């Protein structure tokens, strides 16, 4: 009951922010001369629309509880894996191992997370899938670019299934007291990472100077520091929904945010390498699921393990 009320409070807060942004966006569109359109304003409004949908969907899932969250992230894994494997190196000899990745390994990983089989879900992909899939590919006898093929498939699974599954795995951390709190921990994690990303983007555009990897991404030191600070501040404000104290919540938020930003940078490098701008076009204005989730993906395992450590 308390969890539901808290989720609704948070939802109210986010709705207030999104409404304010929508009003600003529509006002900006109103100022554009009739018959013309300003692409920056248009993109902003498209993105905002996607944010509305994502926030509403995520809130409904969080209200429905752990099983719904599990299914939501399993679907996110599926969509992400589909985007990632579309661009990896593969040959027909990998067909069966790729089918196993989609239809056996992905569902099993979420079953292990769902039944709280910690010992299994933390080693299943890094050990067993890692050993099994190259065997399946090798049995087909095609050695062309073999190492590149199996390595890229394994990377796809680690990123899109193993890392993402650590978000719903937070449900199993059970900090002292109320177990409904773990749902709020997921909400906390996703919110601080996304707010850090948004602020990093805006601050970087306004006053960013020193680019940290100019050949890969427009990310700047100033933008990142601002983003992490905003994530930490949000974390402190939201500490009441977490099992952490104010200081610890701020530190956790900062940690998640900084890991996420570097994740974003790694993904920029992969996209450059594969020659794609966005992973897909499934989320209007934002690109694909991977474009939206790259920071969450990197931050999730780290956040999960530190949470486990802190709750002893």
């Amino acid at each position: 009951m308390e969890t539901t009320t808290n989720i609704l409070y948070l939802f109210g807060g986010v709705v207030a922010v999104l409404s304010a942004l929508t009003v600003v966006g529509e006002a900006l569109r109103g100022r554009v001369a009739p018959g013309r359109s300003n692409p920056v304003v248009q993109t902003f409004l498209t993105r905002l629309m996607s944010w509305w949908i994502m926030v509403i969907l995520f809130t409904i899932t969080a209200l429905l509880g752990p099983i719904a969250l599990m299914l939501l992230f399993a679907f996110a894994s599926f969509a992400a894996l589909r985007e990632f494997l579309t661009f990896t190196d593969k040959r027909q000899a990998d067909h069966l191992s790729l089918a196993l990745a989609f239809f056996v390994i992905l569902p099993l990983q979420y079953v292990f997370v769902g039944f709280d089989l910690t010992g299994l879900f933390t080693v299943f992909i890094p050990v067993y899938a890692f050993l099994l899939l190259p065997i399946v590919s090798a049995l087909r006898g095609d050695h062309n670019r073999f190492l590149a093929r199996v390595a890229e498939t394994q990377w796809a699974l680690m990123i899109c299934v193993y890392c993402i599954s650590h978000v719903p795995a937070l449900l199993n951390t059970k900090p002292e007291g109320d177990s409904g709190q773990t749902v709020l921990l997921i909400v906390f994690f996703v919110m601080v990472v996304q707010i850090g990303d948004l602020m990093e983007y805006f601050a970087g555009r306004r006053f960013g100077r020193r680019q940290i990897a100019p050949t890969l991404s427009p990310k700047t030191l100033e933008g990142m520091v601002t983003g992490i600070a905003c994530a930490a501040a949000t974390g402190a404000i939201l500490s009441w929904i977490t099992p952490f104290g104010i200081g610890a919540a701020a530190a956790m938020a900062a940690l998640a945010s900084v890991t996420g930003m570097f994740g974003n940078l790694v993904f920029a490098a992969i996209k450059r390498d594969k020659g794609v701008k966005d992973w897909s076009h499934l989320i209007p204005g934002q690109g694909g699921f991977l474009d939206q989730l790259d920071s969450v993906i990197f931050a999730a395992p780290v956040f999960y393990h530190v949470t486990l450590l802190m709750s002893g």
Partner: protein
Amino acid sequence: MTRQTPLYRWIAARFTGHALAFIARFITAVRAEWRGIEPVDKQRVYFANHVSNADMPMIWTVLPHHMRAKTRPVAAADYWLKNKLRAFVGPEVFNCVLVDRRPEARTDDPMAAIREALDEGSSLIIFPEGNRNMTDDPLLPFRAGLYNMGQSHPDVDLVPTWVANLTTIMPKGEVIPLPLICTVTFGAPIHVGEDEDKDAFLKRAADALVALAPERDL
């Protein structure tokens, strides 16, 4: 063809059509890229590469409803009339124009049905390679049909349409399709030139089609 069929079959066909499009979207997240044309109502012949039986449903799925209703795939009669299920899906769900590709068995001119469909204002989806391409080359040599259509209906836009990634999604000999992202790219329309001969035109058409292929398909 739908005109003579009973209402319940018509409803079943529309329902099956939506279900197939939904499945195609759910599995491959198939998406259209309108590179050379707009998704507007205009009579066109979409000519596409052919590597798998899923090509035609993919193109059909990405066409918006108002275009889909007026677009008829040209397909092989021997394939689509083989059993009752296929005879329902091919002619009724996809509203195919069926042509017999076996010269020894056919009694009438295969182009006649196609011309008739074009005369009544339908758009068409055709695979000018004739057969599925199982080779490593991006395209097999085109048959003459596309040229004949361009000549008899010079006002109809001939639109090159590349279906990407299907070779990896469902290679020959595999049973389980992979849910990878499939993209259908529509290029700029071409027309048969004033005194362009058949071979020159077919070469130009094939080049226009291959030009749409992403690097990893070649």
